[in-house]
């Protein structure tokens, strides 16, 4: 078994001039980074880190925008034998105080030795790093462009394949406490199994706008292409969200064959791209557009297909994947050179009996989109509350076992232990298996997934409860599926004693404002209710799912069983 630095070294000796990454930035010519350029620059970073006494197994936090330097710093940290972790960059809407708080909470758990960032950010990082483990802040603008590097002396080439190669966090206070630690061997085993599942070949070109602090972007849209020598066309999520046609143009210009998207992006592209921007675009090179990281909707696939079939999009290009960072990335895959399997089942059977009974399309049936069969190194089971294995078509918690699981939640043995039961990782997702294929029906834990991003409701609630006028401790946050957007939307319900209408409006606006400034989401709806409206559990905790149902009944007029209420 080998390590990631060894693979990069071998790639650089085999095909140094092959394109590793085409980096796209608005108003700038595309930047072609060859395998050799990437390798040399990563070595440069590795040498600099080593000279500054960053030791093997120490964590280095990278706070950089989508750029060549981000790529070099990430692999360079590995060459130094240290563990890179990419922290999302400060967005326009986030308050600097909140960002500093997030950094501090990340520093506390991961105990990083260093941070790599820009000059403009130095003061910010300095402040956050006070009294922390951080010994060194590297400023990319100040780093030497040439260093003497003795490759054989870099500790990154001496690491065992079982050592931790990277950390991955999801967002928010809760997510930052839970660093998913992956080993070299786990990453390579995942890639070996996954490349077979998607029939990856030297002729492929991967196109991605996905952020690199998320498994889909980091593994499928970054590490896999670079390590397996598949050219990657990379753009920033910041640019893509302002001009979604950029993805389609990149597919056209570079004959892209593969891309991964969260479900909302299908709706987003279909609804917002102007026809005038699509002139001459040809999408026929695309062999798989893989829907992953949030509930997959057939309606989103249909909307996308209808809009882009005239531009050469193949029907069979639509594919699906079930993935999680704890398994490095993919658990299962469907739709490669075949249509995605659809399963029409009885609505009531699913919601009441928790059984997926087949039922002809129409009326009271719902369309489930398959996430496919497990990839070859991963086994999947459906368990009931007691941990018994359930038969096909019975809904329960999805559990998995593989040779590419996380090493641990970094420095959190308590969380690591709680995540497994008899050697099986409990995903917290609910679903069933039919004909060996996995279908996801909902979630056990109170997690909200907005546009593929995991949001912990407790983080949002904590912000809301600090707003003046909200009754102490009486607020709840949950997700409601928005069919039009193809993703969940966060709704906040908070109790107040304020009666005056103007004051109430102010409180509601203030809730939205504070959530927007202090979290990764944008809150459009804050509902104020009277004292005593919110339901509590017997143990006195605010019951999220019960309050969510009450909200849907009272504010959205949905009293029939909605499929989405289970999500």
């Amino acid at each position, binding site marked *: 078994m080998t390590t990631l630095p060894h693979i990069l070294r071998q790639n650089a000796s085999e095909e140094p001039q092959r394109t590793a990454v085409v980096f796209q930035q608005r108003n700038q010519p595309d930047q072609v980074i060859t395998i050799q350029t990437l390798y040399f620059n990563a070595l440069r970073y590795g040498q600099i880190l080593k000279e500054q006494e960053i030791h093997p197994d120490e964590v280095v936090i990278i706070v950089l925008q989508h750029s060549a330097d981000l790529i070099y710093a990430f692999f360079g940290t590995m060459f130094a034998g240290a563990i890179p972790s990419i922290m999302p960059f400060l967005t*326009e809407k986030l308050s600097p105080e909140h960002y500093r708080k997030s950094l501090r909470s990340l520093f506390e758990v991961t105990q990083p030795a260093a941070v790599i960032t820009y000059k403009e950010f130095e003061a910010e990082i300095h402040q956050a790093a006070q009294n922390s483990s951080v010994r060194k802040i590297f400023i990319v603008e100040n780093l030497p462009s040439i260093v003497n590097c003795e490759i054989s002396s870099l500790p990154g080439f001496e690491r065992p394949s079982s050592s931790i190669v990277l950390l991955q966090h999801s967002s928010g206070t809760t997510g930052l406490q839970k660093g998913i630690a992956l080993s070299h061997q786990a990453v390579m085993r995942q890639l070996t199994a996954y490349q077979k599942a998607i029939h990856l070949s030297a002729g492929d070109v991967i196109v991605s706008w996905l952020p690199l602090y998320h498994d889909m972007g980091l593994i499928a849209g970054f590490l896999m292409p670079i390590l397996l020598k598949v050219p990657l066309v990379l753009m920033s999520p910041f640019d893509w969200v302002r*001009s979604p046609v950029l993805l389609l143009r990149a597919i056209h210009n570079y004959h892209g064959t593969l891309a991964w998207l969260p479900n909302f992006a299908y709706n987003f592209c279909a609804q917002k791209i102007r026809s005038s921007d699509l002139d001459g675009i040809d999408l026929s090179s695309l062999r798989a557009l893989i829907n992953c990281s949030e509930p997959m909707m057939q309606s989103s696939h249909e909307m996308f297909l209808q809009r882009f079939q005239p531009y050469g999009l193949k029907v069979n290009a639509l594919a699906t994947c079930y993935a999680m960072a704890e398994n490095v990335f993919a658990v299962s895959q469907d739709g490669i050179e075949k249509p995605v399997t659809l399963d029409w089942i009885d609505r009531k059977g699913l919601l009441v009996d928790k059984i997926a009974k087949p039922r002809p399309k129409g009326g009271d049936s719902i369309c489930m989109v398959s996430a496919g069969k497990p990839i070859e190194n991963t086994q999947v089971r459906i368990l009931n509350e007691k941990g018994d294995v359930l038969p096909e078509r019975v809904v329960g918690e999805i559990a998995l076992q593989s040779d590419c699981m996380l090493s641990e939640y970094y420095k959190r043995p308590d969380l690591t232990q709680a995540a497994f039961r008899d050697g099986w990782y409990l995903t917290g997702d609910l679903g069933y298996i039919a004909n060996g294929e996995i279908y996801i029906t909902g979630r056990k834990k109170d997690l909200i997934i907005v546009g593929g991003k995991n949001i912990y409701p407790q983080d949002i609630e904590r912000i809301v409860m600090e707003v003046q006028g909200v009754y102490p401790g009486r607020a709840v946050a949950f997700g409601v599926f928005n069919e039009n957007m193809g993703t969940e939307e966060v709704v906040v319900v908070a109790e107040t004693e304020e009666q005056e209408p103007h004051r109430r409006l102010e409180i509601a606006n203030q809730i939205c404002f504070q959530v927007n*400034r202090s979290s990764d989401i944008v809150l*459009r*709806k804050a509902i104020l209710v009277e004292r005593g409206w919110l339901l509590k559990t017997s143990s006195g905790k605010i019951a999220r799912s019960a309050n969510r149902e009450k909200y849907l009944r009272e504010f959205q007029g949905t009293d029939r069983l909605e499929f989405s209420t289970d999500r």
Partner: protein
Amino acid sequence: MDELLDDLSKFIAETILQNPSRKIEPTEALISSGLLDSFHLIDLANYVEDRFGVKIEDTELNRQTFDDLEQLCKIISDRMRRK
């Protein structure tokens, strides 16, 4: 100018925030406050193009170019005049 302000305020409140009772003040921060989600900036640009026939480029959808309605209206009316 006032008409333009009202028109845009109404569009943001009704279509983007889905909260028709919300009034957007001319100098209220739109982007830096997170009031306008990055997912909705393109809606604003598309609306301006359809309604007033002027283009706001995707590279202009940031707070350096405009962060409130007053600034946005100035860009729109300048471009309308130049046409």
